[in-house]
């Protein structure tokens, strides 16, 4: 029982991390109609920024701020230099351009930080376990990740529903031409949305740093699942991104844990683990296919 609860918490934590990335991606995709393959690079830039600042200053606050600032700055620069030229282009050209961005940013990171991973020291206060319910221990830092992600979800929801800027974001997602016709500076809106997406991805990277290793290419690993989350949740919807992220996170974790156990009864442990890992990655795509068959627009419909 305790094992099941701990694994579900692991799934929630993974889901929260996916949400941070998917929220930005779904807004960019939904509002700006841009497929940005380099979204994972903001995750990596946030992680590297925080790791670098932590190594230089040893201060937790400075590290977090540095990571967020690096990601937001990168987002602004990339929007201005590259993305602006892609608004009127078709999807293939966007994919090519942003894929080139991935290669460029990865090489740049290699030149700056080398090929070996960076290890970010965990803030001492968070490095232990917490007893959430008597009998269930869970790493404190991962609870912080879950809490941060949930806070961001609530804040984003309030922002999108209760503020004027948020209203423009929602309107830009469903009625783009009308927004432009009403005289709103759509260019500025786009830059803001892109920067927000980059910032959220950077936050994900900052949070992931102390747990995983910060290395070149870390963004690509999580980017594919992020796209799956966006497709399942519905493009342009933050609620959809949250629902999709939770589904993908928990399903992936539980499959990874349960499938090998089931398979071990019919094959050797090493084969069962390998096949289980493969099947569980497949499982997520099967879920995506099922969702697309039943509700092609994703779980939360945004387009009118």
């Amino acid at each position, binding site marked *: 029982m305790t094992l099941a609860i*701990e694994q579900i918490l692991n799934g929630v934590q993974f889901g929260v991390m996916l949400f941070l990335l998917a929220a930005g991606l779904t807004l960019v995709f939904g509002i700006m109609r841009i497929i940005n393959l380099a979204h994972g690079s903001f995750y990596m830039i946030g992680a590297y920024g925080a790791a670098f600042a932590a190594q230089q200053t040893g201060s937790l606050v400075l590290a977090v701020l540095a990571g967020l600032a690096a990601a937001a700055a990168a987002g602004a620069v990339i929007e201005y230099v590259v993305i602006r030229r892609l608004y009127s282009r078709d999807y293939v050209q966007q994919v090519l351009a942003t894929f080139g961005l991935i290669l460029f940013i990865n090489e740049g990171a290699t030149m700056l930080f080398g090929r070996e*991973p960076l*290890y970010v020291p965990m803030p001492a206060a968070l490095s232990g376990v917490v007893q959430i319910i008597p009998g269930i221990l869970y*790493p*404190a830092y991962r609870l912080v990740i879950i809490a941060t992600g949930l806070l961001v979800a609530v804040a984003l929801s309030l922002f999108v529903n209760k503020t004027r800027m948020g209203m423009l974001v929602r309107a830009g997602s469903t009625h783009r031409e009308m927004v432009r016709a009403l005289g709103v500076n759509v260019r500025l809106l786009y830059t803001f949305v892109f920067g927000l997406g980059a910032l959220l991805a950077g936050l994900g990277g900052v949070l992931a740093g102390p747990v995983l*290793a910060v290395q070149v290419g870390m963004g690509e690993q999580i980017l594919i699942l992020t796209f799956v989350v966006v497709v399942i949740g519905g493009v342009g919807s933050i609620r959809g991104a949250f629902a999709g992220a939770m589904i993908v996170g928990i399903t992936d974790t539980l499959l990874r*844990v349960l499938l*090998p156990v089931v398979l071990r009864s019919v094959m050797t442990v090493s084969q069962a*683990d390998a096949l289980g890992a493969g099947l569980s990655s497949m499982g997520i795509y099967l879920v995506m296919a099922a969702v697309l068959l039943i509700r092609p627009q994703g779980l939360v419909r945004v387009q009118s």
Partner: protein
Amino acid sequence: MGIRAGLSGVAIAVLAATSAYAQTPVKIGLITTLSGPGGYLGADIRDGFMLAVEMGGGKLGGIPVEVAIEDDGFKPGNGKQIANKFLQNDKIKLFTGIVFSNIANATVPDIVDAGAVYVSPNAAPSNFSGKDCNKNYFVVSWQNDALHEAGGQDATNLGYKKAFLLALNYQAGKDALTGFKRYFKGEIIGEVYTRLDQTDFATEMAQIRAANPDVVYQFHPGGLGITFARQYQQAGLLGTIPMVVAEPSMDSTIVKAVGDAAVGVNVSAHWNTDFDNDANKAFMTAWRQKYGADRVPTFYASQGYDTALAMGAGLKGVNGNLDDIDAFDAAMRKADFHSVRGAFKFGNNQHPIQDWYALRVEKGADGKPFLKTLGKIMSDHGDAYAKDCKL
């Protein structure tokens, strides 16, 4: 004809004479992993190897050598490509360097089938140790299983009864747990293989906690060892469930990166910086002089160094002439060099027969954790596959 032919004849004779005095260097191909979480392993092997070349004044066994170094990037396909390039374009006959067993499995057959010699400084998968052994294939490090047989014996000696096992899901990981189980006398209550690209072990930590073993034995070399140890501590398991590992999961770079969380971990090893023999003292002095006291060599560096010395002994035996590869193989087999580990000889399958030691991570006088040698686990230990090899 006449003068021109005569002059060119003289020129050729002169060239031939001078080339007899200036020996063309023997080319050695060093294919290793220099990028990613496993990058420092290849870097240490390379640096250990090149230190020996430098100490020989550009020579190994008195024979001048020229080492071509390339990065396989942890991709078996790359290793194969580089090996074929070296074989066909550069006509290299002597190879070394591979860190990981999956890359070795893809690359070594191409090398030995082409009539070249491969001397392994690290990877030694079980499938090449027994009936698929080859006269052109030597291993200086260990046989994959044997490394973990020592670990199993260490865990038994320490009195543990219930073990939970984890390893990376590739050839060396499977060899690891096979070897451990051969010598561990207690009960295995859990066995998990993790993916090669997996960086988050949260689900595995939960499984360990639920199984509640006496001891955890894990095989995650390189950067993954650092990540595993850190997450082990973050999951609160470090203080409650002791870890016994073999050297690759707790080398000196991992100890440094993990810090105090590593103190108390038991490590089975065939080499440590504090070994007292003359060869090791010379190696450590030269290393410290070149790289400073801050960069502690891992055992990968000692293996690179020993491989260079082993190749030097082979080259000396044939006076640098690789035209007769069988003669070179015979010279290699004598293992006529002083290993930094102390006692060393090749078994009939051309894998090492050596001693294994118990180490532990302890806190030094300067407050920093380091690996301390406690005692011997096994003497003159070969491996379980030698009897299947027809050499």
